């Protein structure tokens, strides 16, 4: 045992000085925005049962956690995500609370095995929101608008892209082709790395050459509304069609709010299909070589804790975001929301019967975004 005491484990780091201040400001900006959309902060245990994460994230993801045993031999983990525990709380502790439930958090998560060279951190801070108990497209839009406001408040306007997809598109195609789980995963991987040539080869036994080629081209594209039109001309099964319709109705609202510059439709985003059940999205910011956040709809999650209900949410990597802002030589004082200042001028809850069918979602969000621009708190009423 002659290891020097100065050593620090791989993937761990210090924050101090300017950088620590900047990071704290980014966190406060996020939490203030979330509060502005009526999200309530939750802190979950740092150490929890490993089985929670196995159910909450799926085996492959949970496997990356630091694991150790409790006195009685049961397997524990340093939390690799916050969503699992938030979903468990929703199904148990908050089972009788009025829906929708809006929860937000900023907390470190730990992963023993990083996913790529670029993701070297083994401790990173996740800042995110969960909207539980509403399955309308208005709920999906609400979380997208929160992400987008958060990034704009960090002066990243014009420098970020949120890519949208719906898992129903892939699932519908895989089902129509009658793929077994192994082949399904093979197709998913080919789409995930955008390998159009091998995907075309893979599809050959299942479909006409023209159709295969068109599908392979489709998943390589990322674009705006025209991507959906193209998708309709290539994909005809019902499940995929419904997913395309869902994306289009989201896009219509994004369009009417004048936000199409920061959104993309990316049908090639097929990560974690076993986890998500509808909308999925990824968040990219110029200056970061890796995505800074992701989210989507996970209607299957809370069922494993005894209460099945729809849910949608996202996480942003606070440390990755801080890196980007630091490289742009932004310091805490240049941010729109200075640390510690009372930001919410009004904390009135503007409750409107949103999400009920006669109301046009575009009008709803136009009004909500206006109120947010004046730092007023909004609380959308959502149909279940």
């Amino acid at each position, binding site marked *: 045992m002659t290891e020097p005491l100065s050593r620090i484990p791989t993937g761990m780091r210090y924050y101090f000085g300017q950088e620590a201040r900047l990071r704290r400001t980014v966190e406060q900006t996020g939490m203030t925005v979330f509060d502005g959309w009526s999200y309530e902060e939750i802190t979950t245990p740092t150490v929890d049962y490993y089985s929670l994460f196995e159910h909450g994230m799926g085996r492959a993801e949970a496997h990356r956690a630091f694991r150790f045993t409790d006195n009685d031999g049961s397997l524990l983990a340093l939390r690799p995500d916050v969503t699992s525990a938030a979903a468990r709380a929703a199904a148990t502790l908050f089972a009788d609370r009025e829906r929708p439930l809006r929860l937000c958090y900023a907390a470190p998560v730990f992963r023993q095995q990083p*996913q*790529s*060279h*670029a993701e070297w951190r083994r401790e990173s801070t996740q800042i995110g929101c969960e909207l539980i108990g509403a399955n309308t497209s208005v709920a999906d839009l609400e979380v997208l608008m929160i992400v987008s406001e958060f990034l704009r408040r960090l002066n990243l306007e014009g420098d970020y*892209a949120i*890519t949208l997809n719906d898992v129903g598109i892939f699932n519908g195609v895989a089902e129509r082709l009658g793929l077994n789980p192994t082949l399904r995963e093979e197709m998913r991987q080919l789409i995930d*790395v*955008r*390998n*159009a*040539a*091998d995907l075309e080869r893979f599809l050959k036994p299942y479909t006409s050459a023209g159709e295969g080629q068109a599908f392979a081209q489709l998943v*390589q*594209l*990322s*674009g705006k509304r025209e991507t959906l039109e193209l998708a309709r001309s290539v994909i005809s099964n019902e499940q995929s069609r419904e997913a395309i319709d869902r994306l289009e109705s989201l896009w219509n609202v994004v369009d009417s709010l004048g936000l199409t510059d920061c959104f*993309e439709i*990316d049908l090639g985003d097929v990560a974690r299909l076993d986890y998500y059940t509808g909308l999925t999205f*990824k968040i*990219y*910011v*110029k200056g*970061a*070589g*890796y*995505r800074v956040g992701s989210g989507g709809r996970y209607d299957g999650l809370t069922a494993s804790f005894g209460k099945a209900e729809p849910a949608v949410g996202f996480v942003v990597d606070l440390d990755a975001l801080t890196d980007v802002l630091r490289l742009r030589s932004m310091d805490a004082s240049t941010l729109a929301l200075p640390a510690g200042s009372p930001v919410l001028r009004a904390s009135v809850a503007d409750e409107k019967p949103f999400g009920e069918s006669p109301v046009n979602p575009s009008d709803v969000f136009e009004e909500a975004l206006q109120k947010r621009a004046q730092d007023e708190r909004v609380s959308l009423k959502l149909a279940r």
Partner: protein
Amino acid sequence: MPELTIAVAKGRLQDEALALLAAAGAGVSSQDLSSRRLAVEDESGRYRFIFVKPGDVPVYVEHGIADCGVVGRDVLLESGTDLLQPLTLEIGRCRIVVAARTGVNLNELGMLRVATKYPHIAATHFGARGRPVEIIELSGSVELAPGLGLADCIVDLVQSGRTLRENGLKEIEVIDESTGRLVVNRASYQLKAKAIAALISNLRSEI
């Protein structure tokens, strides 16, 4: 300011990769090519090239320091990277093989000693077949190892097979084929979508 930074693997693939890129409208001047600079711009000023060791291409691209890269599939298989691979370039075609001394029957051995520059590929290959192996990682001249008794077989990249034959080895099994790949950073793919789509389509029409 160039639109895209492209990392090119030095060595085996470099000349073919640069010829292909030049045909696709991203040509480096002969003056820049003959210089020893490791970062040069193409003649249009739209692309910046950096020349790095093959194994470092995925590192630069994953971090987003380079938006794209040209590298052999062998390198990608070995390092298990998280990158987009939109295009297979028909350059640098070769095989990743298991080779042993002529006359040796590997199936008679309870454990294999495998010398290789590709420890990950070798371990995955033999692991899938349930064969116990000791991986001996070398950084070059792998073909020497069986003859000198360091290993029972090797896992290596083979183009013509001449080096194997001249060192008394024969190919036993092909693990995989490898050609050059265009790899792209996931964030760049979204944030520089137009420039990357243009590069992909220009390259595709030259393959």
